[in-house]
């Protein structure tokens, strides 16, 4: 659905299409409203509308009809995603697609047999679709100069205008610019011209993004040359030096590093007093790479007795990616969390997981912060403020 010129057919009930569309739309439309994309939002989801009769007589007729209607709208790329129903009743979607390919020789069909959750969980389905999209890349197009493909399961690290502009600024220091995003909102043309880019870069270092990198390697033979988007001073400096080396501009790297270091060290020095000795627990279920946060808390003198990775309800296991494997607790659950709250009695808990009982412990949100040092320091200010603000907002008290 992120590719706005691809007609996406959900083969299944209308309610499934409603869930798919509404779960995504609000967040995406807010980003369009902020002006984050150069293209307008699209309504490219279609649905075969399988009903009760289809469970008896099959849904291939519904699928054929929907494909014809979608092709009539002018889509040259049509993706077909299956839900549980056609998977269970055994609709022969490849045969339908084969017939439609004959009927519409100018249309490219992309089949994603997710079968709801029968073929796997959310990530499995995402990777399946990604593999199909990766197949759109035209590898006959030669590599160019200066372009950087960005790879990520989500682009929330760049989903503010300031973060997007900062990335562009930093790339420009090395004579680079953004090329395609795999996969973010926009036309499929840049995916087709994927090979034009000089370099590839992962937007973050999570298991999901690593899987995407594998998918792209398989489809294009390309692997990221640039390290993942760096967050925090250590990663930022390493990243800048590597990019400087690759582009033959080491002096640009050192200049930017000096600027970032000065900013970071100065901040840490002037803000350490409020963090020194404070007990901070970290509990993430989104399994983001939070090494920048651990570095920051260590630099600020906080005690971090628990760094925990839990499992999201949609995943099979926690999948931490970290330099601090010896300090993290994987497969952490809510029972362990409750035990820690009682025994550690933290000054603040940093978590991406709103449990609903935050009235009983001081907590800070954590999400994607962005590239470099500035967003990390803004986050530190947020933490600092939270430790000075009332632990519990007044609205929680109904007296």
């Amino acid at each position: 659905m992120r590719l706005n010129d691809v007609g996406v057919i959900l083969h299944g009930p209308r309610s499934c299409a409603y869930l798919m569309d509404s779960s995504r739309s609000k967040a995406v439309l807010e980003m369009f409203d902020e002006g984050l994309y150069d293209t307008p939002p699209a309504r490219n989801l279609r649905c075969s509308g399988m009903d009760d009769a289809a469970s008896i007589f099959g849904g291939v007729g519904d699928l054929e009809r929907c494909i014809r209607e979608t092709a009539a709208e002018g889509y040259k790329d049509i993706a077909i995603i299956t839900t549980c129903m056609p998977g269970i009743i055994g609709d022969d979607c490849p045969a339908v697609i084969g017939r439609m390919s004959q009927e519409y020789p100018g249309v490219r069909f992309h089949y994603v047999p997710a079968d709801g959750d029968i073929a796997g969980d959310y990530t499995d389905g995402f990777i399946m679709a990604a593999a199909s999209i990766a197949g759109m890349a035209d590898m006959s197009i030669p590599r160019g100069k200066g372009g950087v493909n960005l790879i990520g399961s989500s682009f929330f690290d760049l989903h503010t205008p300031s973060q997007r502009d900062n990335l562009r600024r930093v790339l420009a220091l090395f004579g680079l610019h953004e090329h395609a995003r795999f996969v973010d909102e926009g036309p499929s043309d840049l995916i087709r011209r994927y090979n034009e880019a000089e370099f590839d870069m992962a937007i973050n270092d999570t298991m999901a993004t690593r899987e995407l990198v594998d998918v792209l390697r398989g489809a294009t033979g390309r692997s990221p040359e640039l390290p993942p988007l760096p967050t925090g001073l250590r990663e930022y400096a390493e990243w800048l030096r590597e990019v400087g080396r690759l582009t033959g501009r080491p002096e640009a790297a050192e200049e930017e590093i000096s600027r970032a270091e000065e900013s970071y060290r100065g901040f840490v020095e002037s803000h350490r007093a409020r963090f020194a000795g404070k007990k901070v627990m970290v509990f993430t279920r989104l399994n983001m790479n939070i090494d920048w946060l651990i570095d920051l808390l260590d630099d600020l003198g906080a005690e971090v007795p628990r760094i925990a990775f839990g499992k999201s309800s949609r995943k099979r296991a926690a999948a931490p990616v970290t330099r601090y494997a010896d300090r993290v607790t994987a497969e952490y659950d809510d029972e362990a969390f409750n035990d820690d709250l009682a025994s550690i009695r933290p000054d603040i808990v940093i978590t991406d997981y709103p449990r609903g009982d935050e009235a009983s412990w001081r907590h800070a949100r954590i999400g994607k912060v962005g590239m470099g040092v500035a967003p990390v320091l803004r986050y530190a200010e947020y933490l600092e403020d939270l430790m000075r603000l009332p632990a519990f907002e007044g609205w929680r008290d109904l007296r």
Partner: protein
Amino acid sequence: MAVESISDAVAFLHGPGGCRIRHMVHSSAVFPRMSDPGDVDFSWFYCGYPRVPATYLDEYDYVNGGSYKVREGLEHISGKKPSLAVVINSPGAALIGDNHEKAIADSGIERAVFMDESLVSMPYTRCYAHTLLTILKSVAGDEHQIRKGTAVILGITIMDKDWAASAEELTAYVASMGLEVLCIPGAGASVEDLAHSVEAEYAIVVCPEACDGLPEFYASRGVKVVRSPDGAPAGLDALESWIRAVAVAAGRDPSKALGAVRVERARIRDKLMGMRYNTARIKGLKFSAAGTASVVRPLTTWLYGYLSMAPVAVAVDPGEDPDEAAALRDFLESVDFGDSFGREPVDGCDVVLCEGFTAETMRLAGQCRIGIPIGYSSMGLDDVIPRPVYGIQGVRYILDEILHGVRGS
């Protein structure tokens, strides 16, 4: 969502976890029923979120059956002592034929029903009403006495934009006529409320599509059904018509309710007269409207007559009330805009009134100037100031959006 509208019932989804997400989030957003904040359930079925527990059906269960998860889930839910648990199949789960009757019996849960029919791809309003009707038939006793001077209000759903504000306002009008509103089935009523709802003297319809089958049920129980000839109370004219329909049917005095509408008319008139330059930009605006027929019809006639806006595309959702749809079509023909009937929102019109994501997408894509959510998906779940579609609040909401939207035009 019909089950989630019942304040002390639990909708238990038999299906994949992905099917749960939207329902659980939307349910707690539009009808928060917060229990003790410390009481967070991290079981397999709730995963830390308090609404719409699910069996998290997976590929193993599709092959081997998932009945054991239904039984275990109901055992767990029974510990929370809901007044009613309702097992609902996802489309995939409906195909595997798990025996919910046995699972309910084996679980020992006191009160539970399951939705037997597969309502796959049927219109939302019809499904909502059907689910409610199934529950009503299960909880409403056969023996009851009609209580004079009482009413229930039908056809508000918790998927309606700011439904609680609509319910409050419409209840106030009915109460001002001396009728006691016992409950609003489908919008916040408890199981006990539903059980006693058949004792009402009147069943007042707001949106016929959203209570499809319910008026007949209540009529069969001796309840007098009241329905406005001009559709749902959206727009000032239809609101007045709705109030009068109640008053005539019940033999009550509508002057207080109509007085409130009259005051509002004067207030709006003053505002529009005062904003003369922006007001002048409204007349002649083209609009597209799409949604439930009994809502789109009064909105269309109101925008046409009250603001002199031109209807260029007017479509009704599947599951439409045939009388409402016919009346809408006839109206458009009568004012020489007949070719707009049946057209989905068009690119290039000034104002689009339809479900929220489409309206917002069209606005962001430059396909309309003003996008006004009136349907079941909405960007406005986080509104603190209610912006419903019905009643005076609905009128203010729509006028606000239009007046703000014509700035700088």
